[in-house]
């Protein structure tokens, strides 16, 4: 019988006290546990940064890769062994900055995997520079001047790129995040979970109190849950392009809400053939048996040689 502790490791965790990463780590472990996934059937891939250390703290196969490059490595591993549950984790700089090309193109393919992005608007491990998600004009405490470039909108970018499950959650709401993660892992296709997260060391703007709205006149929390407002981002008929486009536009409109009201939850979901299924449409055996289980080592190349005579 698997227990929650079976998804944890005893590796020393060196994240700052109070880091939002802990909430994300816990949610990943709880989601895997509740889904009863065998640890050895799961592989977690990360990039570089504070979040990059995540695989060392989860008891699954773990790949701590290069800065911005977790998605290609995860893609290769998934294609090699389609039976693996593949989760990639990374920071906002890792995924939306240096790895932006891979972020977009992996979504285009609709690889069956889940991408969890730690979105705290700063580069933590290099000591507080602006991340691609820091809004223009904002200045965190280690910056000498406010940001002069636009922030990326991860939700809208993911939808246009082709992610078929696009959601946002909050690192300090572990229960919500865990449920979103479970839905993302269950989703067949590319799932982005953008996780708003505090960085108590470097981000002195988007703090726990800021998210709680304590300084707002209303004192109302900034975050609200889409599912509690009757919002429905799920495409019912994937063949109906009107519905698909309408759901995409609706999700993108929501994704630009910021400041006093910030939506979290499932923005958009559309069941589409995965990259693996598209490959199988050309190479049928790919669907039935993972490449790792196929005997590819006794091939006869004499027909090729014959064709060259």
């Amino acid at each position, binding site marked *: 019988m698997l227990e929650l502790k079976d998804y944890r490791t005893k*590796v020393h965790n060196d994240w700052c006290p109070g880091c939002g990463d802990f909430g994300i780590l816990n949610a990943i472990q709880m989601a895997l546990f509740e889904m009863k996934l*065998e*640890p*050895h*059937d799961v*592989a977690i*891939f990360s990039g*570089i940064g504070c979040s990059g*250390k995540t*695989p*060392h703290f989860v*008891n*699954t*196969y*773990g*790949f*701590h*890769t*290069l800065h911005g*490059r977790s*998605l*290609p*490595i*995860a*893609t*290769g*591993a*998934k*294609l*090699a*062994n389609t*039976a*693996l549950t593949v989760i990639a984790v990374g920071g906002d700089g890792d995924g939306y900055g240096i790895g932006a*090309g*891979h972020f*977009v*193109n992996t979504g285009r393919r609709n690889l069956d995997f889940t991408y969890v992005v730690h979105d705290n608007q700063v580069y933590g491990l290099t000591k507080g520079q602006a991340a691609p998600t820091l809004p223009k004009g904002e200045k965190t405490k280690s910056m000498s001047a406010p940001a002069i470039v636009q922030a990326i909108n991860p939700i809208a970018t993911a939808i246009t790129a082709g992610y078929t499950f696009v959601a946002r959650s909050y690192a300090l709401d572990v229960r919500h995040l865990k449920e979103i993660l479970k839905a993302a892992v269950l989703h067949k296709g590319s799932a982005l979970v953008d996780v708003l997260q505090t960085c108590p060391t470097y981000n002195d703007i988007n703090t726990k109190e800021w998210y709680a709205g304590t300084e707002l006149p209303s004192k109302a929390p900034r975050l609200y849950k889409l599912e509690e407002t009757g919002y429905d981002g799920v495409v019912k008929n994937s063949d109906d392009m009107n519905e698909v486009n309408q759901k995409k536009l609706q999700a993108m409109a929501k994704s630009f809400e910021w400041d006093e009201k910030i939506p979290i939850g499932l923005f958009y979901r559309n069941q589409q053939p995965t990259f693996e299924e598209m*490959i199988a449409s*050309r*190479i049928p*055996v*790919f669907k039935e048996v993972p*490449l*790792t289980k*196929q005997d*590819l*080592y*006794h*091939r006869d*190349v*004499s*027909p*090729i*040689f*014959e064709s*060259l*005579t």
Partner: protein
Amino acid sequence: MNLRPLSHSVLRSLAPTSVRLGGRSFKPDSWGVANNQEVWNLPEENNVTWVIGGPQGGGINSVAETFAKACARGGLNIFANIEYHSNIKGEHSFYRVRASDKEIRSHVDWIDLLIALDKETLFGDIHKEFPTHEGHRNEVSPGGGIIYDAALKLKAEDIGRPDVNLYPMPYMEVLVGALKEQGHEKELSKYQVMANTVTFGASIALLDYDFNIVADSIKQGFTGRKAALGDLNVNAARHGYEYIKKNFADGFPYKLNPIKPTQKRMVMRGVQAVGAAKFKAGCALQTYYPITPATDESEFLEHYEKDYNIVVVQAEDEISAILMAAGAAHAGVRASTSTSGPGFSLMSEGMGWASHTEAPGPVIILWQRAGPSTGLPTRTEQGDLQFVLHAAHGEFPRIAIAPGDAAEAFYDTFDSFNYAEKFQMPVVVILDKFLASSYQTLPILESLDLKVDRGQIATEADLATNPAYKRYEFTATGISSRALPGTRGGIFRTTGDEHDEFGHITENSENRVKMMQKRMRKVQLAAEMIPDTKKANFFGPVQADVTLVGWGSTKGAILDGMQDLEADGIRCNFLQVRYMNPFPSELVTKYLASARKKILIENNYSGQLGSIIREKTGITMDSKILKYNGRQFSQNEIYEGIEESTKNGVKEAVMAHA
């Protein structure tokens, strides 16, 4: 072979003897002696260099490849190489097919029979504001021939080669005649590219080659739904053939005759050899980003995806390409990626990660082209050797192999997958544009004895008895058993950070030293386990006047050039280095320590292998023959270069044939 090289300048200085049109007034005594001293290669049966030139998109490839195949089917050996521009339509390209009943592994710089599809093939683009070449009319050997379009209305004086047989033929008129015969004369615009086939047929008539073999080869290129097109082309070729037979006297001195082949042979180029090796080795995933001249290999693999269940993925860039392959290798399949210099530059960080994490791969096929930057994207060069050995920051193990021809490319690529998994490191196979695209006749390669060796894999059963499995366990050999993700009991972490035996990050200083030694020890192990016979080839007598040293695709020209030198009484041998890492220092020392005169031959500016030999063995080359104009050495350039070095004492001869 009565062969004497003739340099470009000598060719131009040939004194015109008499005007000959269409083979009339052909006088054998008017060629043979040139420039008072150089003796020209006397025409002999079954030894011809045939060139077709024309605008890109004009169909020179299909004709040349069909010709090469037809020669091979008639038992002849061929060597065929193409020069083309980084352009889709219009720029000048030419395809050279050398056919012989002797073994040939290279090209020569003269042309015995030139097919000019357009005027530029003859005269170049010298009329342009920024001319780039002067055409091929001056490269035709005395007594050779030129087929050109009568519609160009050129006078013999315009061509300026009275020592050459001229065969003007009205291309479109002959083509229309052929189309009319099959009721397609109204579709000339659709079929006008078939002018190439008409000229091809004409060349077959001059060479007196068996038209039936040619017809079969043409048809082979048009199967299934395209079969009718095959018939049209055969008919077009026949009309060209008959035009020559009817309008010109039979006097062309270069002839090709089918001979009885001793064994079944293939016409193969490098990309096919590498592709076949990947199938044989069990490669499951090939990733690539489109780049000349590497893409052909990925397309070849994709063509067979259903037959061999290989997944070919076009990645968003080369960074992704190498890392997908590395991820797949870690996950338990054989994976590879193919690229050229610009892509390999992008791959370097990924290669470092793959090696540092001891990924069992990937195999990286590097089809070099002339760099730096975009360089000459469709031309050849051996400029990336030092880069391969040093790519990416830090020190990490890698294997680098440089095959010298298509057969070696097949076997070395096969081995590279075994070594990648056995030694758990990336393997780079270094090739180039010349090898990628040059066709050569080869016996069917022996592949039945090739055995896949997947190295040490920790199975579920192994892991059941090993509760504290260490993916990076310190061992005497440096190799640790690898578990494949998905295996119960095999959970491990891998990281590009320095790590402990479990794969967890640590900055412990003692661990760092042990891990560096563990990883680097694997190269030493590879050096011990890979047989010397694979690491370098040595040709010729042990004692010689001249020892040639080279690597990669210059092999063919060097071997063929050596024959010319031997005919002149110069005893020479040739050391071809094949393993660049682990480098066979002892072997190289053994061959070079007592060599009288060591001449380095490389298709680059600085003589990179020479630097490596000096670094690893302390041995310095006596002189160099280099070429870096984006074209491969020809057989005659090897001869010319060695003559420069031995007779004229030139320390660094730079060859420049285009």
